[in-house]
């Protein structure tokens, strides 16, 4: 069953997919931007500053999703003894870090008109900053450790330690008194966000997810070519 995860088979798909993903990303992003900047209403309290939500929230969601996936893939790599899982995890990390930074910076920009400050050491913001540090550690570990087994162990350890932070980020607004507002969207119960704002949020999330898929495909292809370069050296 795990044969479908063989790099040779995957490359046949990943080498052709980026151009289609890119076209779809541009299409969905265009619709999302029209919805987010023109068609969606302003908030009765926050006025137009609420539009920052359409880049801030999807970025935060995707950075959390990517880190969870990296942890799952790293552990699966050990369980199934399949090094390709580690390669997929490594290729996901750069976009995860960028989405994390975007969430932090756009949150900071949103904080100024809403809370009157660019930064506060509250639980949600601080735990997101800690996640960025875990992303950095993960990427740095891949760069500095040359021994293959050692790098797999260290990166997996980083993801296991980092994943503890994910529920803390999610529930920080419920566990502590924070400047950050509680979640407006709930999968299990009724969301407090109006559909006129939920629609652009969903479209922008789809666009950002497509962008992360695009970056993943390009990065994964690069990593495979790197491996093949080493393979040619060994011939």
């Amino acid at each position, binding site marked *: 069953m795990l044969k479908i995860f063989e*790099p*040779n088979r995957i*490359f*046949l798909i990943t*080498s*052709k997919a*980026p*151009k289609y993903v*890119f076209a779809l990303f541009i299409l969905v992003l265009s619709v999302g931007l029209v919805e987010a*900047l*023109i068609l969606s209403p*302003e908030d009765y309290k926050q*006025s*137009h*500053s609420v*539009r*920052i939500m359409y*880049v*801030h929230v999807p*970025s935060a969601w995707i950075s959390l999703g990517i880190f969870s996936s990296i942890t799952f893939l790293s552990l699966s790599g050990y369980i199934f003894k399949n090094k390709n899982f580690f390669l997929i995890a490594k290729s996901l990390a*750069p*976009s995860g870090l*960028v989405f994390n*930074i*975007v969430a932090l*910076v*756009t949150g900071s*920009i*949103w904080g*100024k*008109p809403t809370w009157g400050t660019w930064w506060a050491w509250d639980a949600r913001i601080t735990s997101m900053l800690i996640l960025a540090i875990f992303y950095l550690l993960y990427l740095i570990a891949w760069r500095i450790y040359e021994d293959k087994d050692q790098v797999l162990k260290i990166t997996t350890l980083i993801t296991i330690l980092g994943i503890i932070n994910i529920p803390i980020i999610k529930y920080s607004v419920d566990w502590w008194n924070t400047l950050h507002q509680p979640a407006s969207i709930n999968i299990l119960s009724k969301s407090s966000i109006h559909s006129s704002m939920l629609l652009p949020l969903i479209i922008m999330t789809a666009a950002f997810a497509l*962008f992360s898929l*695009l*970056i993943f495909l*390009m*990065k994964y*292809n*690069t990593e*495979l*070519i*790197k491996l*093949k*370069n080493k*393979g*040619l*050296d060994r*011939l």
Partner: protein
Amino acid sequence: MINEFLDMNGYGLYVWSAFSFTFLSFTTLYVTVKAQYIRERKKFIDKYGSLNTKKAKIARNQIINQEILSSGQII
């Protein structure tokens, strides 16, 4: 009309900087990853071209190598 849209009730500076930062980050990431891809592919082509006949025959048997050589237009 345009000024109103750009000003956004005085919040324009915040909204536009947030969107600009987001897309600037996306562009930087895209360009960086694409540059890495082009560099590695070029390295591969150079190495592949310098193989002797025997090694080239072995390399040709791997489908993925043919795919790398033919997948120049990543986007």
